[in-house]
Structure formats: C-alpha cells, structure tokens
C-alpha cells in the first residue's frame, strides 16, 4: 500500500504568450488504503493532478512524496497504476493478454497466470478471455483496463474519470464493482470525476478542486454501499454543488 503527500504542487502551461496555472500550489495528503475522490468542473486541473502523480508529466514546482505504512524502504519501490477515461487496450492483444500487459515480460509466468485468472474472475470476464477489444462492449473494455491495472498489482490506483464514457447502467454497475475491489484489495484509490454524485458515492473523502486550487474537502462518513437518496448523502452532494457554483470564476 502507498499513500501520497503533495506539497505546493504547481503545474503551469504556456500557450503562445500566455502562461496559465493548471494547478496552483496544491497541498494534499492521501492516506494508505484510503479511497479519495477529487471532483471539479472541466479544466479545474484534476486530470493534471493525476498525471503528475502518475509520472506522466513533470510538475513546474512542488513535491510529490509517496508514503508507505511498511516504512520508507517500501515507499521507494511503490507501484502506481492508472486507469484512464478510455480503456486504451492494445487492439492486437486478447482480453487475457491485455490484462497481463504490464507483466508480459515477467519471468514468473505462473504468478502472471494466477493474477490474470484472478482478475478475469473478479471482473466477470472469464468467458471473454480470448476475445479481442474490438469484439467487446465499452463497459467490458473498461473492466479489462481495470483488470490490467489490478494485475500490475499497484500500491496506488489512480483513476481518471474511468466511468465517464460509459452508459448510465454500466457506470452504476462498475461503481459498485470498484467499491467491492476497494474493500477486498485494501489498496489506495484516488479517483477524479466531474460527477458530484459519483464522487460522494465512491469516496471516503471528497476533495473539491477549482481553477487549479484545492478549495475544500468533505469527509463522507457513510458506510458502503451508499444509498444515493439518503438525506446525509444528498446533503453532502448539495454542499459540494453549492460550493462549486459559488466558486465559479472565469478560467485563467
């Protein structure tokens, strides 16, 4: 498992003569084995935050420190898995091979096989193990992407609006599957979304990001699986809505 501490994390982009901050001095601490959601409107910097943490982009300034309950030695060898908004499966590999993708060169083939089988079973994909991505539905493809990340066995799983491109029913189903995975795997989950209801449904803590700044966080002390119509659930949801609307300002 791994947690992460962000201090004064800043990312600036320059387009032509203009420089703008996608992230502006973000301080955030994510505990080991927690499930945190980051919510905000498009362009608030949530994807940038995830990409910086995943090592896909370099921060302009600030620090990202990974922590581990197993001590500093373990935190150095941490693994980070990313689930993108689109499944991004390799079209030339079957479902099983895609799940094994990060481990295809692992000499321990038995371990890879075991982990692939476990992921296939966990995500209900056994029947489709030999199918190619073009032959499965969008929801199934996103499940495969999740399986690929799980098979990589990361300490920290970063998810960038993973259910955003799916239909309503598949989205709800996968949200529940994600909760089951979180509860059974004990890994650290960090999910970004623009869907406030999804953020409250999934996160133990909801962080609100606006114009590159962390404006507030909401603890969600409700047991999983949450009832979306429960007064406490709706109250948190309303508070986040109000905060985002109130904080609305022209993107700079």
């Amino acid at each position, binding site marked *: 498992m791994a947690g992460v501490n962000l201090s004064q994390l800043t990312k600036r982009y320059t387009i032509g003569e203009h420089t703008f901050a996608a992230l502006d001095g973000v301080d955030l601490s994510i505990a080991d084995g927690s499930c945190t959601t980051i919510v905000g409107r498009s362009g608030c910097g949530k994807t940038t935050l995830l990409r910086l943490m*995943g*090592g*896909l982009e370099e921060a302009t300034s600030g620090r990202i420190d990974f922590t581990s309950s197993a001590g500093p030695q373990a935190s150095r060898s941490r693994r*980070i*898995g*990313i689930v*993108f908004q*689109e499944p*991004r499966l*390799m*079209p*030339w*590999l079957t479902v099983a091979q895609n799940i094994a*993708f*990060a481990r*295809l*060169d692992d000499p321990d083939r038995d371990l890879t096989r075991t982990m692939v089988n476990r992921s296939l079973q966990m995500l209900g994909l056994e029947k489709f193990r030999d199918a*190619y*991505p*073009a032959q499965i539905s969008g929801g199934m493809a996103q499940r495969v992407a999740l399986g690929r990340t799980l098979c*990589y066995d990361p300490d920290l799983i970063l998810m960038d609006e993973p259910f955003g491109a799916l239909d309503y029913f598949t989205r709800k189903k996968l949200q529940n599957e994600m909760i089951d995975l979180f509860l059974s795997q004990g890994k650290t989950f960090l999910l970004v979304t623009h869907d406030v209801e999804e953020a409250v449904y999934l996160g133990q803590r909801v962080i609100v990001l606006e114009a590159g700044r962390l404006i507030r966080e909401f603890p969600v002390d409700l047991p999983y699986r949450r009832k979306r119509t429960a007064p406490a659930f709706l109250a948190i949801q309303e508070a986040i809505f109000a905060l985002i609307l109130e904080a609305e300002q022209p993107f700079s």
Partner: protein
Amino acid sequence: MQTYLQRLKGLYIPLLLLIAWFAGTGLGLWNPYIIPPPAKVLATGKQLIMSGVLFKHAAVSLYRVFAGFGIAFMLALPLGILIGMNRRLVRFTEPTLEFIRHIPPLATIPMLILWFGIDETSKLTIIVLATFFPIYLNTVNGIIHCDPKLLEVGRAFGFSSRKQFWRIILPAILPYILIGMRLGLGYSWRSLIGAELIAAAAGIGYMILDAEQLSRPDIIVVGILTIGILGSVIDYGFFRLTRYFTPWGESEEKHGWG
C-alpha cells in the same frame, strides 16, 4: 453461404468478358490476329505448360520478384523504423527520398544497364526501387500515427523505450507494414515485367516480347493471363498471411479479398 455468394459476384465480369471473347470470335467480329481465338490461346497455353517453357519463364520472374522484394524489405523496414523513431532525421532524408520516389523505376533502365549490364542486377535494382517506397513510407507513417494514448499506457507501467518499441509500437505498426508489403509486392511485379520487356533473356516479360517479334499474339495473351493469375495468387496468399499475423482484424477492411 452468404459470403460464398458474395465472392461469386467477383466472377461476373470475367465471365462476361469470356462470353464476349467466345461470341466475338465465333461471329467473326474481329480479326483473329488482333484478338486470338480462345481455343488457340488455350492450346498454346497447354503446349507452353507441357513443354515446361511457361514454368521456366514464370520461375525466373518469380525468383526476381521475391529476391528484389526481399532486398527492398530488408532495406525499407529498418530505415523506416529508424526514421520514424527519430523524426529529426526526416529533414536529412526527406528531400532525397522524395526526389527518388518520383522517378519511375523504368526510366532508370538505360542507366542501370550501363552500370550493371543486362543481367540480374539491373532487374533486381528496378524491383528494389519500385518496392522500397511503399514499405518505407507505410512503416514511417505507421510509427507517426501510433496512438500516443497507447504509448502513455506503456509509460504509466514504467516501460523502457525498448519495451515500448517491442510491446506497443511494433505491434501497432504491423498492419501498416503488411499493407506496405502488399503494395510493394504489386509494384515489384509490375516493374519486373517492364524491365523484362526491355532487357532480359528469360521471364514472362521476355516471353511476351519474344512472341511479339514472332508475331504470336496467342503467346502474348497466355503471358498476360499468367501475369494476372500469378499476381492475384500472390496477393491472395499475402492477404491470408496478413490475416494470420493480424487476427484482431484491424487490417481486414483495407483488403479486397475479405
């Protein structure tokens, strides 16, 4: 069943042409010297097959096609990968390659004969020139169009550049390479016949040229049909090979045989 019926549709036009050929000859609509009768072409074909002449010429042509294609492939693929992976090199190579690309290989025949004589080297060079560009350009194109989102997946899993190449780039560009190879094979076949028509002592092209000098249009037609049939058979073989190597079906829609 439906697919077989669909495929049969491709035979309608050849069948119509064959009927017209038979009917026109039977009705005496044209001079048999200009368009030889089907029966005569059939008899000549049979005789050329039985005597082994057709096989000899076809074997020589096929050898040239595959040898030239092989050399072109060995040159074009590594160069395509090198340039595609190091785009800064494009500035150095692009003007020269663009210049050569626009020269029809057949236009270089007089110079090639001057440099290499009329033996195999000049003909192989023509095939290499004709085949190189489709393979090279498709390889470079494949790398340029390799989905950056897939490459990012590799980066997210901490792949080294070497692993990125073998695990993502190469499989992703395989359909492009195969299409380039298939196009190249067609070009090499066409340019070879051209080369053989000008300077050769054997090969289907030579057989056609020789028949022209002997005033034997029936042999010319046998030669033309052989070229068409061999070209189609090779293309179909390549299509099957493509399907085998890209079972995920991405390249299928780009082929005519499916």
